[in-house]
Structures are given as structure tokens and as C-alpha cells.
């Protein structure tokens, strides 16, 4: 669909985005282990292809909603890095002033309407955002990321039926890593799967190998074009694999020995790298992209660590206009 050069540029963009997400999360993991980041931390190591491939097709004014594993979605949508890292560190300069943390990453300035601590919590928000945008005469679309675990919660049915009913421009993206917390998806999910569920709710669905970032990009491009054309909602089912545990402290020891190793060979960055090398891109060039990402993230970590904590006095702010309480810290 795009000429060779454009395509090459796209692939490199995907590669760069994935490298930044990977570097961000591995840096965050290290910082969490070092005690620099408080609270729970959910990383998406191995799943970067989905966020990168989908968000490459979004405009700045498009919106996204995310789940508890939202760093990749935020970065791919263009969220400010310093504000993200500082948020994880609970610092004053975080996008949420240190009030949200990893599980509530949000950057409204780039249309990132927030991660969510409640599984499937972003689904009704996404359909409502699309409905509101239409009312305001906007042509922006909304992309809603959630995991395979979310398809067993009521809001999945309600939200998809709703989006189909009002023909809302929502791209539902089910990031299917085959596991919900410590439980395998197949052990809690009956029937033929998320795509069939979507179709039965009036939402056409496409499945794609989520570890093939280029394939995700192409599928998303098609679906987003349909959305922008007013065709109504679509669902993208992206299969992938979570190389790390559920949280930073979860070894996911229950997985079979070989399983993770086998998955490593299929992880999206390696695969795109192989393709780019095959297409003649120099290894150095790719190493540089990766190196830059790592450097950028360690710098962000250092900056966040040096950044000021929020003044306790702001704890009372941002609650509400009428009936706000005041306190002394």
C-alpha cells in the first residue's frame, strides 16, 4: 500500500517505537527493583508490536484508552517521556502530579485518556469519547486497548453493542497475550474467541499476529481507514506474548520451562530487526536506534530520580470545585 521507501521508513518508525517502549519498561523494571518506583508496575515486554503498529495509524487528535498495562500505548501515542517516568516515580512533574502512578498513566495533551486500574474499565469510556467527539463535529477516532481478560467482563459486551449500534468510530484492540494475571486465557474463556464475540455484537473483527509489528500496522491501517470512512467500529485481535510476569514482582514461575524461551525467539523487536536486516538495513543503524532508546530512558530515569517529590499540600488539590476540602501537611 505504500512505496518501498515509505514502507522502509514505516518499518523503521515501528522499530524505533518498540525499542523505546522496551527500553522504557526495562528501565522502569530496574528502577522498581532498585526501590525507586513505588506501587505496582505492569510491563508489556514482548507486546510492543501491538501498541506500535496500531498507534502509527492514529492522528494526534485521535484518542486512546488503555488498561493497567499502558506504558506502551502511551509512548506510542506520543505521551511525554519525562512526565511518564516522573509519574512512575511519583514525582511532582509527572503527568498526574504523582497522584496516579503507572496504573493511571494519562497524557490528555496527546489524546491518551488514561490507563485504568479496572479490567475493561476503558471500554465504556472509549465508546463515550467517540460519541462525544461526534457530537462536537470532530473527525477524530478512538482506539481502545484491552487484554484477553477483559472480554469476560460485562463492559465488553455492552461497549461493543453500543459502538455498533451508534456506528461509532472506535477501534477495539484486544491484546491477547493468552494470560490474565496468573490464569491462562483458554481456561476462563469459552467459545471461539474474541473475534467471534465481536462479530456477534455487530463489530467486524480481524485477527493478526501481534508480534509482527508490520502486520499489525497494515491491519490497523485498513481498519482505521474504514473507521474514518464512517463504517462504524472494528475490532483488532492481536495475539502476542508477555515475556515477563503479571507485575514486576511476579516471576510467572508457573509457566513451563521452555515456553518463555520459545517465545523469546518470536518477540516483535527481534523479528522486525531480522526483517530490516534482510531488507538491507545496516545492523549498526538498528543498534543505534536501540542504543539511543536505552540512553534516552536511562537519562529519563536519572532525571526522574533527581526530580522533586510533590509538595504534600497538593494532596488536597484536584478533587472537585464545589465542596473541596483543605488541609495542612
Amino acid at each position, binding site marked *: 500500500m505504500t512505496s518501498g521507501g515509505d514502507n522502509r521508513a514505516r518499518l523503521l518508525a515501528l522499530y524505533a517505537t518498540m525499542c523505546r517502549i522496551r527500553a522504557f519498561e526495562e528501565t522502569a523494571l530496574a528502577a522498581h527493583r532498585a526501590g525507586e518506583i513505588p506501587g505496582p508496575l505492569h510491563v508489556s515486554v514482548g507486546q510492543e508490536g501491538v501498541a506500535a503498529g496500531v498507534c502509527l495509524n492514529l492522528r494526534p487528535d485521535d*484518542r486512546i*484508552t488503555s488498561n493497567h498495562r499502558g506504558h506502551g500505548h502511551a509512548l506510542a501515542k506520543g505521551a511525554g517521556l519525562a512526565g511518564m517516568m516522573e509519574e512512575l516515580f511519583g514525582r511532582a512533574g*509527572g*503527568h*498526574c*502530579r*504523582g*497522584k*496516579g502512578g503507572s496504573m*493511571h498513566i*494519562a*497524557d*490528555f495533551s496527546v489524546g491518551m*485518556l*488514561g490507563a*485504568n*486500574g*479496572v479490567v475493561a*474499565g476503558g*471500554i*465504556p*469510556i*472509549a*465508546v*463515550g*469519547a*467517540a*460519541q*462525544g*467527539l*461526534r*457530537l*462536537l463535529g*470532530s473527525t477524530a477516532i478512538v482506539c481502545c486497548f484491552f487484554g484477553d481478560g477483559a472480554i469476560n467482563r*460485562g*463492559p465488553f459486551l*455492552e*461497549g461493543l*453493542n*453500543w459502538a455498533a*449500534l*451508534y456506528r461509532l468510530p472506535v477501534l477495539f484492540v484486544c491484546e491477547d497475550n493468552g494470560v490474565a494475571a496468573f490464569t491462562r486465557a483458554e481456561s476462563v474463556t469459552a467459545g471461539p474467541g474474541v473475534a467471534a464475540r465481536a462479530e456477534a455484537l455487530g463489530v467486524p473483527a480481524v485477527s493478526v499476529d501481534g508480534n509482527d509489528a508490520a502486520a499489525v500496522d497494515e491491519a490497523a491501517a485498513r481498519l482505521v481507514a474504514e473507521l474514518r470512512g464512517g463504517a462504524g467500529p472494528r475490532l483488532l485481535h492481536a495475539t502476542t506474548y508477555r515475556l515477563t510476569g503479571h507485575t514486576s514482582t511476579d516471576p510467572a514461575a508457573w509457566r513451563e520451562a521452555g515456553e518463555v524461551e520459545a517465545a523469546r525467539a518470536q518477540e516483535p523487536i527481534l523479528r522486525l530487526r531480522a526483517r530490516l536486516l534482510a531488507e538491507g538495513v545496516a545492523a549498526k543503524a538498528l543498534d543505534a536506534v536501540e542504543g539511543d532508546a536505552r540512553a534516552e530512558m536511562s537519562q529519563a530515569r536519572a532525571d526522574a530520580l533527581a526530580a522533586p517529590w510533590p509538595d504534600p499540600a497538593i494532596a488536597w*488539590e*484536584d*478533587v*472537585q*470545585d*464545589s*465542596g473541596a476540602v483543605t488541609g495542612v501537611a
Partner: protein
Amino acid sequence: MAEVTLVEAARLAALQEMRRDPRVWVLGEDVARGGLFGQYRGFLEEFGPQRVVSTPISESTIMGAGLGAALVGTRPIIEMRIFDFVMCAMDELVNQIAKIRYMFGGQAKPAVVVRMPHGIWRNSAAQHSQTLESWFTHIPGVVVAVPATPADTAGLLVSAIRSDDPVLFFDPKNLFPLKGEVAEAIAPIPFGTARRMREGTDLTIVTWSAAVPMVEEAAATLAARGVSADALDLRTLWPWDEDAVAASVERTRRLLVVHEAVTTGGFGAEVLARVVERLGPGAVQAAARLGQPRVPVPFAPPLEDALKPDAAKVVAAAEALLRR
């Protein structure tokens, strides 16, 4: 000034605001047909299906979609039909709407109005009669409005629609037929200001929502018996008019809080506790609450009547308080 019913007053207030601000819209079951109580009658015809959206029976999504629409700059009126069904949308209300501004450090203000007709109404039994307004005073991030007259319903609804805060608006369904004056141009009534129903010196009676007419009647009866009650309708429970209540109790030294809700854990406990904390127990001669016993609302009239507060029970509680 026109004499209208409370539900019509609410309709006129929403109508005025939707005419004023194109970002205001309403979503909920059957709203395109005027709503279950006619509170949106004629809205579809005037504003069209994009601003008057009849929805599936999907409470979680009615609530959550309202939030999403607010996050992009519209100002939804989320109609929940009957309060009890909000139980199907509590995650969206309590975990999302109430917290999103704070969790995101002020990046967004979810300017929604959640309308929830509540209370005992025509022997509807346990799943259609609840009054849990006190719950939401315990939830940071939301305003709690509990009007009881046509004028207050209209004025508070205007404020609710114009507010950037999420406002939980408890329409008093049993008072919908109640008539009263409403101005042509409905002015907003500020949150947190009580309405003095009657001036008095012997005891302070604090109430709101469906209990207001009971207190009016009881106060009249008491007056006939030579007891002068200072009666306050709080109108909003968060923020609430602590100053007005404290000032009144300082004068009367006696406090009776009356609400339709179950007494245990009701907002009457908060009112009583704050007054005692603020004035000190020494400033109070006697204090009590009157609400429903901790029992679900039954269906049969004699059972419902046995449990629900009424004017006679208010009079009895007031007279008991005066003997203390």
C-alpha cells in the same frame, strides 16, 4: 413565575440548559420517549437523536460512556431511570467518574450530571425504593444534590449542568407531582446552601429530599401544639450547609435529623457528629435521628407504612427530644 410540578420543573431546567449550551446532551433508557417520568418530554423533537440518546439496558455503559463523552468536552446528563439500577454502574461511577480528575492530576474534569430518581414510591419494594445518598458523601470527587421542591430541583439542576464537577442528582421520585412556582428564567442555586423551611426556637430539624414534606407537616402540627421548630432543608449533602445547621442548633440546643434513608449509616449520623464535634457536646441539650429501621423496603402497604418515616413519627421524635 409559573406553577408546575416538580418533574416538570426538572424538565424545564434541563430544557433551558440544553438550549443554552450545545455541549449538553442526555443519554439513558427511553429518554427519546421522554423518559420514564416525562422529564425529557419533547427533547427528541427539539434536539434530535444525537443529543437525546435512548440507550440499550446497559447501565455500566450509560454511566461510562457519559464519562468518556465528558472527557472530550461534552456535558452529558446521564439518566439512570431509577436509582437502584446505579448498582449496575458503580465501578464507572465510584472508581472512574469520582476519581479520574484526581488520579490524572487535574488533566480532566468529568462534567457529568448523573440523575437518579430515588426513594420509596408506590410500593415498589426493596429493589426500587432505596435512598443511599449518604454513600456518595463518603466518596471524594462528587457533589450530592437532594432537592425537594420544584424551585430547588430546577435551580440545582441548572447548577449541576453548569458545574465542572460530577454531580449526583437525586430526583425525589415520590415528590414528582408536587407543585410549586418556577421562574421563567431559572437561576442556578449554589451548592451547599440550606433552605430555611420554617423559623423556630425550640428545636432544629434538619432534613432533605422526600422527607421534606413530612417535616413541613410535622412542624405545622408542632406549631399548633406551641412548639416552634427551626426547620432546614439541606438541598445538597456535599457540600452541605454546616454553618446554617450549627448556627441553628446553637440557638435551639436541640437537633433532630430526619431522612427517608435507613438511620444506621445515613447522613443524619454525619450531621449529628459534625454538630457535636464543632459546637461541643456541651452546646447541645439533645440530639436524635429519625429514618427507616435497618430493614429492606417491603412491598405490602401496611409493612411499608410501618417502616417509613412520616409526619406523625417526626412529631413523636421531636416531642421525645423536647422532653430530654
